[in-house]
């Protein structure tokens, strides 16, 4: 056990929980209308509480139990066999469990952006729990738990595929099944508090240091370089998105700048342990430009109300970074080098296979989960509730009080 490694991952664990509570919650809450602000905050908060228990009971075991190439089995349910001296690598296993739990919390919380302002609260909880159990935990095992994608050599340092592709694709499927908000796309009211969105996004930026640099699972050069490329990608993503808006509208918006930053962060996530600083900067630029174009395509062209652009920003950003890492990992492009026996081409093949497989897995299972859950619980709220707002109807509270 290494004291320095343990200290850094303790810190990283706190940073990643901070990304969801309150970072992501505020980021999303500012983008909805004032009558739904509490419901979005509550979705994120309730997911954090319930997924934590699920992770302890069984999901951690499925992800990181010994098991086989496909799942980890049930041997580590209730942290069975994990005590004060149990280690995972150079850190205590209880810490590894906690660090990974914060990832299991933020991933279903990302999907909150697909369905706000019209979904039933109990469905959010039911869906999120089942989704973590049968979509997320197995994919974690495949990629980080010694499963078959790890064997194939898939590069996913901090979760481009595991976190962003799973959440992004599931968000898109869920948004299509739920249907658009009333008035979409032409008569929906704009975000009620862009300042709140900026505050939340800024917490995400800081928290992402724990997400990516913590994924080194050590306090070493890999962690510090991951932090460096993460920061550069966030900055260039924000600049790229703003420049796109300046060209098109002559105005750079705050919501646009912070969204570009998040796109840059999602894009660098899988690559943050593999690329050099120039690679990080270029990945952020690519993420900002491509994700900007995708938000237009999904909402304006396909008319899918993935309300807060989870697929366009996270799904596409995560997939883009997972593909581009095959090039930027090469020492010729400033990266830390391909694995033995790999070429750019073969690495690209592995990356593409992993992305497509996980995308299909996430999409199909999300479809099935929603179909089955709909038989037992309310999916979408009725029209009156939607007009009144979910805060009052679902939670009996209001975010803002007039006289």
């Amino acid at each position, binding site marked *: 056990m290494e004291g320095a490694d343990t200290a850094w991952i303790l810190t990283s664990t706190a940073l990643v929980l901070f990304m969801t509570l309150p970072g992501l919650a505020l980021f999303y809450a500012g983008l909805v209308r004032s009558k739904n602000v509490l419901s979005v905050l509550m979705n994120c908060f309730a997911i954090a509480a319930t997924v934590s228990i699920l992770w302890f009971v069984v999901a951690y075991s499925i992800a990181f139990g010994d098991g086989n190439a496909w799942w980890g089995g049930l041997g580590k349910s209730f942290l069975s066999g994990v005590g004060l001296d149990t280690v995972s690598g150079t850190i205590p296993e209880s810490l590894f469990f906690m660090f990974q739990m914060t990832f299991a919390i933020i991933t279903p919380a990302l999907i909150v952006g697909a369905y706000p302002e019209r979904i039933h609260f109990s469905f959010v909880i039911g869906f999120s729990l089942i989704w973590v159990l049968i979509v997320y935990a197995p994919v974690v095992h495949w990629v980080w738990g010694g499963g078959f994608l790890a064997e194939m050599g898939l590069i996913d340092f901090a979760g481009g595929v595991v976190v962003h592709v799973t959440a992004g694709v599931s968000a898109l499927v869920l948004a299509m099944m739920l249907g658009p908000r009333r008035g979409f796309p032409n008569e929906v009211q*704009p975000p009620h508090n862009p300042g709140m969105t900026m505050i939340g996004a800024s917490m995400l930026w800081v928290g992402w240091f724990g997400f990516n640099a913590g994924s080194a699972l050590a306090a070493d050069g890999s962690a510090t370089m991951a932090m460096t490329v993460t920061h550069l990608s966030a900055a260039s993503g924000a600049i790229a998105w703003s420049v796109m808006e300046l060209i098109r509208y002559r105005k750079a918006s705050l*919501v*646009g700048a912070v969204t570009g930053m998040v796109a840059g962060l999602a894009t660098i996530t899988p690559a943050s342990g593999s690329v050099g600083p120039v690679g990080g900067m270029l990945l952020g630029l690519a993420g900002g430009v491509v994700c900007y174009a995708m938000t237009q395509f999904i*909402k*304006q062209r396909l008319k899918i109300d993935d309300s807060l652009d989870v697929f366009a920003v996270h799904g596409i950003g995560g997939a883009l970074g997972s593909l581009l890492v095959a090039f930027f990992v090469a020492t010729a492009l400033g990266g830390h080098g391909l694995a033995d026996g790999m070429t750019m081409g073969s690495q690209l093949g592995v990356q593409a296979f992993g992305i497509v497989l996980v995308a299909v897995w996430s999409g199909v299972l999300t479809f099935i989960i929603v179909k089955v859950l709909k038989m037992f619980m309310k999916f979408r709220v009725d029209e009156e509730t939607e007009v009144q707002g979910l805060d009052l109807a679902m939670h009996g509270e209001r975010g803002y009080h007039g006289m």
Partner: protein
Amino acid sequence: MKFIVAIIKPHKLDDVREALASVGIEGMTASEVKGYGRQKGQTEIYRGAEYQVNFVPKVKIEVAVDDGVADAVVEAIRTAANTEKIGDGKIFVLDLENAVRVRTGETGAEAL
């Protein structure tokens, strides 16, 4: 007595208040309201999606005055609130039947 209601651009509130003070008006009510006229709302863009916001934030001023100063008050508001751009607002002048000061019970012009 006249009751004057003016809808103006929010950033013109201080100018209008000062202009009214300079013609001897010592009290008024201001509230934040939303509405539109020929300006027809405004367009806001978030993540490339254009939102048509029909109701634009405005400030409504209400002031009760004696008949003799009504024209001067209207002119003061009009001058102070004017930016010569669309959306500057409107002024409505209504006949006022009575006014009562709550504390003393004074009525009519005495209560203003």
